[in-house]
């Protein structure tokens, strides 16, 4: 019998630890100010009110949401394409030529992004891109490459060599082999990478803080932070903002979860 008392107890305890704050956010976001000050914080107030959500939506939430979507898509799409093509070369190209390339990207895993913000700030200013959404995408693509290439190359390595040889016999070019064979065969890994990088982009805080300035360029986490400053005393509204900003990514996760988890664990288990 599989009896793991310590793990089991710990597992359920941790579930409470994980869910309690999320529960608090949800119930608080449906409370009026009076209920927030007057009621027990862990008991939902009845009836629930939606005025907090209306307040958040009226505070340009739509614009911040759109900014976040633009930045996430503008980061993830080029990132996945570039990482896929580079992975193809690293796995299918000559070892002598591409081993150094692979090692270069591996090195990237050990560089803390934070450490490079000053030169990135300088670079973005010099490129006349300060305070634009594009400024948020470029460094995010660069720093997303190492892990993405690691995961995609791992999956590409599992494609049987015979399939490539069969395409060679048919006279296919590398370009055709890459898109017609490698791409469909590595789709789960590509989805993994896309979902994970979308998550990172969605939650990114540092680049928006440093590389943008105007309120209309804010992405959700930054908007949340400044919102909290403005509404410091109206916690229910702030909690509604936290809830709303999390919904899109929870939905994305619900859709892509299977790929995300399997891809992540496959990459890590090796």
């Amino acid at each position: 019998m599989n009896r793991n008392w310590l793990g089991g107890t710990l597992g359920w305890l941790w579930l409470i630890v994980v869910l309690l704050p999320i529960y608090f956010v949800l119930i608080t976001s449906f409370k009026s100010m009076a209920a927030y000050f007057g009621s027990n914080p862990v008991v939902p107030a009845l009836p629930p009110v939606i005025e907090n959500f209306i307040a958040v939506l009226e505070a340009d939430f739509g614009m911040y949401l759109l900014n976040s979507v633009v930045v996430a898509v503008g980061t993830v799409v080029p990132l996945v394409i570039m990482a896929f093509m580079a992975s193809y070369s690293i796995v299918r190209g000559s070892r002598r030529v591409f081993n150094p390339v692979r090692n270069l990207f591996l090195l990237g895993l050990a560089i803390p992004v934070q450490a490079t913000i000053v030169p990135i700030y300088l670079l973005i200013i010099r490129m006349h891109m300060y305070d634009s959404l594009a400024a948020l995408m470029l460094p995010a693509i660069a720093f997303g490459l190492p892990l993405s290439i690691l995961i995609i190359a791992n999956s590409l390595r599992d494609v049987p060599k015979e399939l490539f040889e069969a395409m060679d016999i048919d006279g296919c070019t590398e370009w055709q082999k890459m898109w017609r064979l490698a791409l469909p065969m590595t789709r789960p890994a590509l989805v993994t990478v896309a979902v994970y990088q979308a998550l990172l982009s969605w939650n990114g805080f540092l680049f928006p803080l440093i590389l943008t300035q105007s309120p209309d360029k804010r992405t959700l986490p930054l908007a949340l932070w400044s919102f909290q400053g403005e509404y410091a005393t109206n916690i229910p509204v702030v909690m509604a903002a936290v809830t709303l900003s999390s919904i899109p990514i929870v939905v994305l996760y619900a859709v892509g979860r299977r790929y995300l988890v399997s891809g992540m664990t496959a990459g890590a288990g090796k």
Partner: protein
Amino acid sequence: MATTTTELSSPPRDGASPAPARAAKERTQLPHVLFALPALVMFGVFALLPLLGVIALSFTTWNGIGAIEFTGLTSWKEVLSRSSTWNGLALVVLMVVATWLTQTPLSILLGAFLAGPQRYRNVLAVLYFLPLLLSSAAIAITYKSLLDPNFGLASGLNMDVFALNWLGDTTLVWYVVLFVIAWQFIPFHTLIYQGAVRQIPQSMYEAAQIDGAGRVRQFFSITLPQLKYTMITSSTLMVVGALTYFDLIFVLTQGGPGVATRILPLDMYLTGFRGNEMGVASGLAMMLVVLGLGLALGVQRLGGKDASASQMEGA
């Protein structure tokens, strides 16, 4: 890189050509070089160039706006003489050690638990993952409200323990920061371990059972040794990650109270972007890079030579 350039200069002929493969072997690398080029350029310009930029800027006293002049070791003297540098360095090292010590055992236990066959564990795994979806800003804001002595958990659960001045006390604040970070990242490492435990051959456990080994013995004799490479992966991500817990601490405590949670990355941000001392900030950034590379290599080293070879293999 030298080899890639010579390849580029050779005439473009790709795999479609019926020429004998051996003669064309080196030339056929051209399409591969072209495929890798966008990623290389992107990585070169926005990751490697900034890395070199950090070194260069640390020898300037750039204020973030004016001209950049090289001033030798001026910024470095400042970096090394400020007490906040050493405070930040000590705090970030403390952060790395405490993070590893708290998160690794819990993640392994939870991962081993979640790797079991029961259906409800899949539901658990979904719920466990939720904190990872939330932004650090959202998490920090949530915990700030939760820990509010008047309207947070303290009044709801009616427990004195929550009524402490969690974010205002220089010692207590560390428990809060470590806890919130564990809350956010244990799910990630748990999932990694869950996947790894599932890959351990069941026959090993069956053999152990026949030999009369109990659950605990099985865990220490089979599960843990089999997780060695996973521990290296997880630990590398964890310790390098611990250097980058900037946003959470920035929103949660602003480095306070006083300088109690002003860890190195935060000190770098405040020095550079609030204090307009980009040269000094770059010096601090270099310390972070060295620390990151050192920690990553150190973890690989601790895992043994074959371990790092297997990690490379995976790339």
